[in-house]
Structures are given as C-alpha cells and as structure tokens.
C-alpha cells in the first residue's frame, strides 16, 4: 500500500513543481499584466503585448549589458488573480508592472507595489482614485482617467451652447466615478442635468429602454457613463431608436477598436475625448503603421500608453543607473515625456502623467477616405485643462502649501 501512496505523491509533486526564476540583480524585468483574452482585451490583449515589445526593441533590447526581460501575465479581468500574480511577479524579481486594465486590479496591485517598493505604471484603468484618495508614491497613471475623459467633451459642448444633459450610467464603481466627474463638469460649466438612468454593468444586453428614456428626455446631449460592451450596446440602441438631429451622443470611455467594431454607420457623429489618435501627426502615423504591421489593427490610447510608459520607464532606469524603485520613480517624475504619445508630458506628484488630450468626433462613412480613417480631431485640450487641478486633488501626496 505504501508504494501506491508514494507513487501518487511523487506524481503529484512532479506535476506541480514550478520553480520561480531566481532574481538577477542587474537585469531589468518588466511585466505586462492585463486582460489578454477576455471581454476587455481591447485595453490589453495582443496589442498591449506588441506595444511593450516594440518599446523594448526601440530602446535597444538591452540595459546594463543584459537583455530586458518581459513577462506577459493574464489577470483574466479578476482582481484577486491580479493581486496574487503581481505578488508572485514582484517576489521573483519583477521591477515594474504595466497596464493593469480593470480599476480594481490596478488599485490592488498598487498596494502590493508600495509594500514591496516596486514600480506600477497604470495605462489600462481609468479610475480617478488611482491618483486620488488611493494614490501611491510607487504608481504612475499614464494614459487617461475618468476626469480627463469626462471633463473635456462637457466643456467643449458648453462652449457651443449645448448644456442640457441626460446620462446613461453603468451601476459599478467605474461608471459612477465617470458620472461624478461628468456631473461636476456640467455644474462648473453652468449646464443642467435633466436626468439619468442606471443599468447593471456588463449584464444588460438590451439597452432599448435606457435608450428610449434618454431620447424622450429631450436633452441636448446624451452622455454614456459606461465602458466597453456597455458603451457599444448603448450606441447601437440609441441609433436604432432614431437618435439624431439636434441630440448629440457623447461617450466618456471609448477606444478606436470599438468604433471599428461598431462601424461608421452606427458611430458617426459620436463625440468623445481621446488620449491618442493614430492619424494625428507624422510621428503618430509612423509609429502606428509599424504597430499595424504587427497586430493588424491600429493602436488605441492604451496601446500607445503601454509603449510610451515602457519606454519612459526604461529611459528612467538608464538615467538613474539602478532599478531601485525610489530612484527610478524620481527620475520618471523629473524627465519630460516626449514621444509619439505625449509632447512635454509630465508626471505630477499625485502620479498622474499629464499630457494633451483631444476632443474627437467620429466621421461619417462619406468623410472616411481609407481604412481606420475614423476620427476628426476637433480640438486639442491642453494638459493643464485636461486633468484635475492639483489643488482639488484628494491625494495625500500632494502638498497643498
């Protein structure tokens, strides 16, 4: 009998054995952690992997004479898996984790990074808490946040006399944080909120009743305080029930991939704020075409943020001459960010990387000349207006002297 158990145990042990790689002090190890295949893979996925690889290649592939090591970790959009795997990654020598789509995952990993003194670059999540009440000296928020996406369209429309709003809000933390940002922006620009409706997050597939309520409210602008499939489903429903004419549709979190999925017929006229548009300048076009050749789709602001964030981190490590988190973070804050993503981008004390944002509108099918020719850049919103002023920040790291 002993033999049987002995054999069983040996079998179990041999299948389970996996030694974490031993940390090498000199080698820079970065990890992309995101949703690689799930419902929010536009915020991560293959695009994020290639963006990080491109950044490493463009940097030269080596640092301190050793190849730069990158891991690609799937958190399956589950915050507890993110927290467990981040802990494991940091313990096996990872210096920096990037992307972290899903705000809950980002907030969880930020705490671990702070306790283990490592660097986190958030590009895939938008919660204002990341640089607000939950801010951390070890975290940098790179691409966008709900404030920057909500504030600019509201102000731009107010300047054109559109100031009566109706909101469709997804009833979860992110949707509510967008709602709060939008409501604040509406109030400060002297507009009125004529009503709002909440829907369960990622569970409602039928948006017709919400769309009808929004249309019949008669509000000049209908705002979508939701994300991913909820946003695209809302857009489809609004179009189906005849939104048009004088009612303006505004999305507060939208990626170019989602427009690609919807088609211009459905999305045309839609207004939103974006952190990156591939067809904006010569530099963005050059980079985006390289990205397109590798991934088969044009980059969105999160992909661009992944590239820019990785490159900025590597440059900071090089300048600092060490991977020590505190020194590198100080360098990251000190060095301006100048690449295809940001012009004179700067990381503030609350961790927000402030850069210009763009108010964009989706083209009509007639206006679109070539593949992925989807957006008109209406306005460039300067960095200091796009993000929450520091004196209103809830972050404890901000010195309000």
């Amino acid at each position, binding site marked *: 009998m002993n033999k049987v158990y002995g054999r069983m*145990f040996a079998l179990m042990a041999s299948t*389970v054995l996996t*030694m974490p790689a031993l940390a090498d002090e000199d080698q820079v190890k970065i990890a992309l952690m995101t949703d690689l*295949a*799930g419902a929010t893979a536009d915020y991560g996925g293959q695009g994020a992997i290639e963006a990080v690889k491109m950044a490493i290649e463009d940097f030269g592939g080596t640092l301190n004479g050793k190849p730069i090591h990158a891991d690609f970790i*799937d958190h399956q959009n589950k915050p507890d898996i993110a927290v467990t795997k981040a802990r494991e990654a940091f313990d096996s020598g990872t210096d920096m984790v990037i992307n972290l789509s899903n705000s*809950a995952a980002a907030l969880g990993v930020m*705490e671990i990074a702070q306790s283990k003194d490592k660097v986190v670059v958030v590009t895939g999540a938008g919660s204002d808490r990341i640089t607000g009440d939950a801010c951390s000296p070890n975290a940098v928020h790179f691409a966008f946040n709900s404030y920057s996406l909500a504030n600019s369209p509201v102000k731009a429309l107010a300047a054109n006399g559109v100031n009566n709003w109706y909101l469709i809000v997804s009833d979860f933390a992110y949707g509510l944080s967008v709602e709060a940002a939008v409501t604040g922006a509406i109030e400060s620009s002297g507009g009125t909120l004529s009503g709002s409706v909440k829907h369960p997050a990622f569970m409602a597939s039928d948006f017709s009743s919400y769309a009808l309520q929004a249309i019949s409210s008669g509000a000049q602008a209908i705002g979508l305080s939701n994300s991913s499939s909820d946003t695209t489903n809302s857009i489809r429903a609004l179009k189906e029930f005849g939104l048009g004419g004088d009612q303006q549709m505004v999305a507060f979190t939208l990626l170019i991939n989602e427009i690609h999925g919807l088609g211009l017929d459905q999305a045309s006229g839609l207004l939103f704020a974006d952190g990156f548009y591939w067809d904006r300048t010569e530099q963005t076009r050059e980079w985006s075409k390289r990205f397109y050749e590798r991934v088969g789709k044009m980059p969105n602001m999160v992909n661009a943020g992944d590239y820019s964030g990785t490159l900025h981190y590597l440059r900071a490590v090089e300048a600092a001459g060490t991977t020590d988190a505190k020194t590198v973070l100080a360098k990251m804050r000190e060095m301006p960010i100048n690449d295809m993503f940001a012009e004179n981008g700067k990381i503030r004390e609350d961790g927000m990387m402030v850069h210009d944002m763009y108010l964009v509108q989706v083209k009509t099918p007639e206006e679109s000349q070539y593949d992925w020719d989807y957006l008109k850049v209406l306005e460039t919103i300067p960095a200091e207006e796009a993000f929450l002023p520091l004196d209103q920040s809830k972050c404890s790291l901000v010195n309000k002297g």
Partner: protein
Amino acid sequence: MLNTRTLMIVLAVAALAVAPAFIYPMLIVKLLCFAIFASAFNLMLGYTGLLSFGHAMFFGSAGYALGVTMKHLGWPPELGILAGVAVAALIGFLAGSVAIRRQGIYFAMITLAISQLIYFVAMQMEWTGRDDGFHGIPRGTLFGIIDLQDDMALYGLVAACFLLALFAIHRIVTSPFGQVLTAIRENEPRAISLGYDVDRYKVLAFTLSGALSGLAGALKALALSYESLNDLHWALSGEVVMMCILGGLGTLGGPVAGAFFVILLQNFLADKVGEWLSVIIGVVFLTCILAFRKGFVGEIGDWIEKMRARKGESAAKQEGNR
C-alpha cells in the same frame, strides 16, 4: 486501515511542510483556502445531500467582516478571522432556516437568491468599495507575537487552519451527528420516521458549512490584504460545486483534490489559452461526470478497495489450497 490513515496524515503534513520550497507559498495559500472552502461545501452536498447554490455568500461575507474589523476597528488577525467565521455562521443559520423549508431545486434557488441579495447589497454599499473591492486590509500580528507580513508565517497559519478544518470535518462526519446527516442524505422520510428532527440537523449542517466556508474566505482576504466583490459572485458558488464533484463527493480528500485541480488549471493555463480555459474546464467536467462519476479521489478510493478485496480473495484462496 489505521496504518493507511496515519500514513495519509503524515504525508499531508510532510507535503505541507516541504511544498513552499518548491511552489510559490502564496499560491499554496490560495490553494489551501479554496480546499477548505470546497471541503466545507462537501459537508453540505457530499454528506447531507443538500445542493446549495449560494456558498459564495459565506466566503465573501467573511472576507468583508475580516476587512472591516481589522482595517477600521484595528482588531488582531485571530479576532478578525473569528469575526469572519461568526458572520458566515450567522448568515448560514439565517439562510439555512429559510432555505430548508423547500427541497431540491427550490432549495438551491433560495440559496442562490439569498447570495445574490448579499452580492448586490455589497455592490451598492459605499464602504465595500463596490467592484473596486475592499482594499488595504492589514495582515497584523497573530496573538501579538507572529508578524504575518512574513509570507511564511502566513503560510503556516493557513496550513494549520487547513489541517484543523479537515480534522473538524472528519470529526463531524464520523460523529453520531454526521451519521444522522448521512441518513438524511440517503433517505429523508426514513430519518424523520426514526424520530430525528431533520430540519434542525439541516440548519446545523448549513451553519457549520457556512462557518467553515467563512474561515476559508477570511483567510483568503487576510492573505491577499484585499477582498474582491468576485468572492460573493454566483460564479464562485458554481465553481465550488464543480471542485467538489471533480474531486469526489462525500470523501475527505476529494474536494481538496478538486480545488487544487481547478485553481492550478486556472493559474497555469490562463496565460497560455486565454478564453479557452472555460471550455477546457467544461470539457474536463463533462468527461468526469460521464466517465468517472465519483470524482478523482472517489475513483482512486474505489480502485484501492477493489485491489484490497482481490488481494484478500487470493490470500483466502491460498489459505484454502493449503
């Protein structure tokens, strides 16, 4: 028989002692938490024959209870864990008292409804952090002397709790009380006609199972310093059913093996196969149900029994030939 059992215990303790040298300790902590959870669930489905579809409510509520008491009230971890267990036991008692009034699918639906109720309350409350989760739970110092910030100390605590929980379940099912539970599973009307107050036994089983699930949830929240809203989600209630059935219902080791299998599969395959993971787990589950219904441990146990019987037979034959 006794030898085999001692051997199993020695093996289990030795494996727990050696494992962290080979496997990342925090992964084992997670495995053990889910093993406790599945074992607690097994107490209901495997031994009492009650299919609850809402066990995540105990797992998650205990995590929040630990979080609130430790973060906001500054309780030490041992009291935090107790608070988690107590809250889960209370919910178990209340939910059990309501649910046992119906049987079969209606019972399962009531448990599902109550757990969904708790899920949506947690989702709407400001203090839970909604779907951002409850962050920043301190690990604290156990009994005022052991600093749990050290991963190995935490591992030791969870391993000890795991062994205690399994021992408790073993004692429960082999006690006269456990025999009554089995009687209820096998033939409820008969148990009633024998004079047992079946409802009381069921509520007690529900409460015990809830308390142990709470232990698992509290330990997980403590280990991760974080409580996720997913821990209350119905998908987790479904997962624990699957862990139990894959491993083997009504066996002590079955749920443990099932929990290890499912969590390891999720952990190692997710980066490689992505969305296909659910399909793979589904196929494994189907195969298991169709081909070996007793689960991994159940089938192995059967096989050992058979071998033993054959040995006994041949030994008897040899005796006869002589």
